[in-house]
């Protein structure tokens, strides 16, 4: 093992970590908002909006992010009217484009995840809420969203971890985050395994922390599923 090399590699890669984190957090944030909007359109009952949402989910879930990012970054610039419009100063920036395409893509996935969460809400509990005069946003905010979010959480944490890894594609549009830097290092040193191993450790630690945080959130959000007392240490109270 060539420790000085590993150490040097680690240092180079860690320098790119802020870029990865920035891409990740911004795209999860915007993607989340967009997903809520899309789910709302999808299940809201308006056939036109619902159709649009379906189409959106279909396209962004169904095609590789690589292609989406390529088309957003290099494709939009092909149109003269976009290049001469007010959005160009923003779209010119690789970072903005990377966040945009990551957010657009994750919104498609997240919308589906949230929709499955909605389906898991017991219809009887929704009825009880309607019966006291709740509807619309209030019903969603107080009853449906908390239960649905709780149900969607395991799938959503997977999606968030996916996003961490998806940021790796941003080097395609000249945003040099951890994986991109690693690939650049490899093409300079040809020490594929060592460099990738360093990168893997960074991602693994990052994702481990995220998964741990999500597990904590899951625990915090499900007191109603736990046994009354901490008598069953960490065990599953479902069956014995």
């Amino acid at each position: 093992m060539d420790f000085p090399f590993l150490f040097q590699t680690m240092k180079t890669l860690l320098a790119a970590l802020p870029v990865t984190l920035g891409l990740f957090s911004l795209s999860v944030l915007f993607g989340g908002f967009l997903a809520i909007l899309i789910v709302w359109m999808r299940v809201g009952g308006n056939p036109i909006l619902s159709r649009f949402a379906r189409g959106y989910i279909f396209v962004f879930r169904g095609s590789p992010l690589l292609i989406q990012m390529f088309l957003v970054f290099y494709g939009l610039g092909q149109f003269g009217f976009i290049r001469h419009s007010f959005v160009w100063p923003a779209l010119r920036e690789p970072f903005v484009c990377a966040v945009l395409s990551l957010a657009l893509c994750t919104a498609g996935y997240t919308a589906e995840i949230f929709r499955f969460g909605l389906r898991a809400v017991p219809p009887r509990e929704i009825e009880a809420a309607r019966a006291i005069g709740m509807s619309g946003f209030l019903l969603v905010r107080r009853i449906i969203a908390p239960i649905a979010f709780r149900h969607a959480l395991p799938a959503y944490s997977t999606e968030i971890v996916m996003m961490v890894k998806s940021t790796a594609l941003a080097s395609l549009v000249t945003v040099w985050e951890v994986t991109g830097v690693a690939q650049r290092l490899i093409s300079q040193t040809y020490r594929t395994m060592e460099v990738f191993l360093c990168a893997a450790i960074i991602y693994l630690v990052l994702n481990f922390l995220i998964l741990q945080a999500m597990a904590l959130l899951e625990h915090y959000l499900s007191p109603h599923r736990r046994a009354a007392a901490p008598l069953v240490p960490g065990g599953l109270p479902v069956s014995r």
Partner: protein
Amino acid sequence: KEWKTVTITLEGAYAPWNMTNPDGTLGGFEPELAKYLCDHMKVECKLVASDWDSMITSLNAGKFDVIMDALSITEERKKIIDFSIPYAHTHAAFAASKDSSYTNAPGTGTVVKMEPDLSGGKDSVEAMRTAFKGATIGIQAATVYAKFIYDNFGDIATIREYKTGAERDLDLETGRIDLAFDDAVYLNSAFEKANGELAFSGPEIGGTIFGIGEGLGVRQSDPELKAMLDDAIKAALADGVVKELSMKWFKTDVTP
């Protein structure tokens, strides 16, 4: 070790060096040269396409025997694989969009030969520094050209690194970047696709500054194969085959 069959890999997507035909066969400068080399060595050759990113790792893992993919001979690469003698040597140059303010920098159309320490071309570099002040220059990441640009233009221009040249060319057309710096042969073929929007700006840079040229990559444990390939390339150069193919595919002479 007796070599009866040799497996040669290329990316199959780096026109005009090598490319894939719609029927799945490989064509271009290198496949045609390979055919000559194999005939000369009297071995059976198998051409396979493979991914650029994992090419050198795969060579050492034994997935194939020879890399023929416009692979520049560099010191770093020599540490892990062996090279044949070069079968091509190309110049490098800047390209700019025709309607930008960086076109026609001094020296356009000429060739300047430089050594790694810039000797022989210090003046042209100075001229280009003046002409390209404040520009955004796009380069392909992790190439010999990247180092040259960082060293000589890093302080006067913004530099953006692309994973592939093709992507950089698209941005050059849309104006996200003002200049591209790359292999002149490669750029030439990009100009064709750009319908005359792009053109060279400043002199073509030759000499040994970017190495001695493109060679075949082989495993360090296969010296017999390297020797056979060296022989074959020498013959191809002597026969004028390289020049002939070069004129056919590149419209210019890339003989080293």
